[in-house]
């Protein structure tokens, strides 16, 4: 059937990509936060490479700054990389089930690995190790 509806009326109600803007902004905000966090982490890595287990535990317990920045690095880092890999999957995978599966896997891997890392850092920092 020939549709007499205008292109605008056909597009209406299908839903605009309102959420897309949120993802785009979140990727940028996390990127900005990661700039100082990554530079700090690189310096921390040089310190931690020189010390053994006791030194690493002492480093985490010395001040609140180290565990807090490390938790922020992990949380914001995993958030950012979830957003990044999501775009990669959306760009290259066009088989619906594979795409949905990979997007879920990306989310679950980031959530699980990020949570395990945050819990581990807090466990050591709070003295449970």
């Amino acid at each position: 059937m020939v549709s007499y509806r205008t292109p605008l009326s056909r597009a209406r109600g299908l839903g605009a990509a309102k959420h897309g803007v949120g993802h785009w902004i979140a990727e940028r905000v996390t990127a900005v936060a990661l700039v100082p966090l990554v530079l700090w982490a690189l310096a921390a890595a040089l310190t931690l490479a020189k010390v053994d287990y006791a030194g690493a535990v002492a480093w985490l317990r010395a001040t609140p700054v180290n565990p807090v920045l490390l938790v922020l690095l992990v949380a914001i880092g995993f958030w950012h990389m979830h957003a990044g890999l999501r775009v990669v999957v959306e760009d290259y995978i066009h088989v619906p089930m594979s795409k949905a599966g990979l997007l879920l896997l990306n989310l679950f891997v980031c959530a699980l690995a990020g949570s395990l890392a945050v819990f581990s850092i807090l466990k050591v920092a709070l003295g449970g190790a």
Partner: protein
Amino acid sequence: MTDTSRRLREPPLSPHLQVWRWHVTMLTSILHRASGVALYVGALVLAAWAMSLAAGPEAYGTFKAALGSFPGKVVLFAMTAAVFYHLANGVRHLVWDAGHGLDIKTADVTAYFVIGFAAVATLAFWIAAAMMGAL
């Protein structure tokens, strides 16, 4: 009934990768994705490091020895390069997002700068690590 059987016109495709003239901005774009995916592995290594620390001295010792071995160092070196590249090119993207540096000449210059920065910073980091006795 009118033309129900009429197929939708195929949308035009953008030219395939191999017909483009190779260009430095193309390289930086591809490397940004590649380094981002590599850092996915790097973040999992970071998570494993935190878990080994929480698991105690023995697990931490094993994990740190694995990182300090030759293959471990190769992976860490690649991760450092990916971090510095993704960091610098990420800032380049943020500047673009703010609407600056989008003309071809500036994009070319910043592309070479980012690649140069990543190379120099990676080498400087490992030289610093060696001098500090962190290797």
